[in-house]
């Protein structure tokens, strides 16, 4: 058995080694990220069969939790970390075709993936703060690395909001430490019934302030449209497919495992509804396709968070499964949209609808892939998005919030309208032709294949998502497998 | 913690308040940056009073020393006065 801590240790090792390799040859640093992701995926896949019921405990410093930091990997976290590494692998293969990058870019990229994986794998709450900071600081750098006006402004906004949010997250952690005397997630979860209600509420709100930045909840998402808009297309993919996934994981872990479906989730519910509605309406107003995709991404995250919060009412496996399906659809569908938009606009930053007119006809492959992504996001049948949207509606029905079903259906119509508008525009008139090289095309096709294949045959994904959901719901098993005795 | 130290602490907290207001109101960024260095220095004395010498050393070296240095370099590039 290979210890999963190697996923983090080896990523770090590779990141530290890049400058040394860069001194040998300028071509080597580019090869390091795909290699690291492949090794990590291999380590994770060999560990699948060891993660059965409960969580797998990996100690550090030779001491048992809660004394030392530990990793705690159950099926839910394993699913997310594999998703993150897989998308990381695809993106790093995408970067292989671009040979004019600074080697430091690859270091930031690798550490960004490392931060997301660390958040997902750790079993210690302060450790999750450290990884959150790694994730955020590398994201500021990646967003700003385009070095034009929009990217810099987006990066700065993200930095200001992220810094304040994560400081509040730290304060929340300290409040939990002061009342329980521990920083281990399982131990805090075990002691949760003894914490007074007022302190619980206070800590939950502070933690929400930190997580809300990552999952783009309403008052904390002011950075998101600008950062998505300003960043390069691949970095926007990374923001939507990887960073927000780590945020969802953290929200689920903290508000279920630690707070045990606490009533503060009511706040997430309302914030989710507000985010969903406002962002989708804002997307409708946009003339700029990339900004539209950004708002649509925020809207999807709002829907996800509001469905996540519904589990508070009933510990329902199906609802968590829905969350996972939505997250997968968002990761692959939105990632595909951002990448193919890059191919459609030829990478020169012209994302206005009128500038893109006819580009889909001129670049049929990119146009087709954009259409596939859009159809999946709006939830057309025979695409993966259909299944996630259907299960979202069923979840809403099961948890007796019928009035939201109407809202989700109306918003779906809005989505169909604005995506349809863009697609029709893409195939009308004469456009500019941009070449697309083979490697990026292959990566985009892989994204599209996921959406199409599992759209027609969703059974395996359903099963995996369900088993992950079960392991999130079984909170006592998680706790007893980390610190024993409940 | 005896009364003498507490009395000193309240005196230092006045310095802290003044320095914070300097950071807020000063139009000259050089003065504002030095104000924030003073805040870090007072905080590091507070850490010492609170029996945290490790943190005090680190805060004095990083907060008052290094951060001020990098802020000054950045200020040289970004302009000294708030209005431009």
């Amino acid at each position: 058995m290979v210890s999963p801590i190697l996923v983090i240790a080896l990523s770090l090792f590779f990141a530290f080694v890049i400058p040394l390799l860069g001194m040998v040859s300028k071509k080597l640093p580019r090869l390091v990220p795909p290699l690291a992701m492949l090794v990590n995926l291999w380590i994770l896949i060999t560990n699948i069969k060891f993660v059965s019921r409960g969580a797998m405990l990996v100690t550090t410093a030779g001491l048992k939790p809660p004394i030392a930091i530990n990793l705690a990997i159950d099926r839910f976290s394993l699913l997310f970390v594999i998703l993150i590494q897989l998308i990381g692998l695809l993106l790093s293969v995408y970067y292989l075709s671009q040979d004019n990058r600074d080697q430091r870019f690859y270091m930031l990229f690798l550490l960004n993936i490392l931060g997301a994986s660390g958040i997902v794998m750790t079993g210690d709450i302060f450790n999750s703060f450290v990884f959150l900071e790694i994730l955020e600081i590398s994201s500021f750098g990646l967003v700003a690395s385009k070095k034009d006006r929009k990217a810099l402004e987006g990066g700065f906004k993200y930095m200001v909001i992220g810094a304040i949010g994560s400081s509040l997250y730290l304060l929340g952690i300290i409040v939990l430490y002061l009342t329980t005397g521990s920083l281990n997630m399982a131990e805090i979860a075990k002691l949760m019934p003894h914490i007074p209600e007022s302190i619980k509420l206070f800590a939950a709100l502070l933690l929400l302030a930190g997580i809300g930045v990552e999952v783009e909840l309403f008052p904390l998402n002011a950075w998101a449209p600008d950062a998505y808009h300003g960043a390069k297309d691949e970095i926007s993919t990374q923001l939507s497919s990887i960073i927000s996934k780590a945020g969802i994981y953290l929200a689920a872990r903290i508000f279920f495992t630690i707070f045990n479906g606490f009533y503060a989730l009511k706040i997430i519910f309302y914030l989710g509804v507000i985010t969903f509605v406002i962002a989708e309406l804002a997307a409708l107003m946009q003339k700029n396709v990339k900004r539209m995709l950004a708002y649509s991404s925020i809207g999807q995250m709002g829907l996800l968070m509001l469905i996540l919060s519904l589990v508070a009412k009933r510990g329902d496996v199906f609802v968590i499964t829905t969350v996972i399906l939505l997250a997968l659809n968002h990761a692959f569908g939105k990632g595909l949209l951002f990448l193919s938009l890059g191919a459609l606009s030829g990478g020169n930053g012209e994302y206005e609808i009128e500038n893109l007119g006819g580009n889909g006809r001129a670049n049929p492959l990119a146009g087709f892939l954009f259409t596939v992504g859009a159809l999946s996001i709006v939830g057309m049948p025979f695409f993966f998005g259909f299944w996630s949207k259907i299960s979202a509606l069923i979840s809403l029905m099961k948890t007796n919030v019928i009035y939201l079903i109407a809202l989700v259906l109306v918003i779906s119509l809005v989505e169909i309208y604005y995506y349809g508008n863009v697609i029709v525009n893409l195939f009308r008139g004469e456009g500019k032709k941009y070449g697309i090289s083979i490697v990026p095309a292959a990566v985009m096709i892989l994204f599209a294949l996921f959406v199409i294949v599992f759209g027609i045959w969703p059974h395996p994904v359903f099963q995996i998502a369900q088993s992950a959901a079960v392991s999130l719901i079984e909170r006592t098993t998680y706790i007893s497998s980390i610190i024993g005795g409940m | 913690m005896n009364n003498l130290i507490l009395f000193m602490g309240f005196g230092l907290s006045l310095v802290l308040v003044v320095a914070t207001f300097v950071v807020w109101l000063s139009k000259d960024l050089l003065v504002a940056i030095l104000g924030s260095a003073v805040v870090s220095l007072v905080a590091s004395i507070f850490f010492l009073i609170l029996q945290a010498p490790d943190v005090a050393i680190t805060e004095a070296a990083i907060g008052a020393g290094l951060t001020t240095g990098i802020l000054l370099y950045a200020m040289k590039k970004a302009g000294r006065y708030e209005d431009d």
Partner: protein
Amino acid sequence: MNGGLLFYGSSVFLMVMGIFIAITGKHLIKILLGIDLFDVGLNLLIISFGYVNGGTAPIFSKYPHIFKNVVDPVPQALVLTAIVIGVAEMAMGLAIVMKIKEKFGTCNIAKLKELKW
């Protein structure tokens, strides 16, 4: 006159002023200074939480003679981490500010209108 008023009061004051400066600051470096003040206040607050009346620092340099009444070492370790993370964030922010100055010719947020603020 008590320690709670002094230390909790100063740290909350720093945090509040830091956020206030970050919200209303006109210059990008001023905003970063606000975040810095906020971080210093937060660190001070965390260390004050760990103080124990009459306690000494958790360093037993007269070993094997050990004082049993020591302050909480864990918040100190956490704050060490937080300080270093704060300076890293500051460095990154300043790099962005310097690039903004180069591209826009100004650091005044009233004049940065590429995207809506």
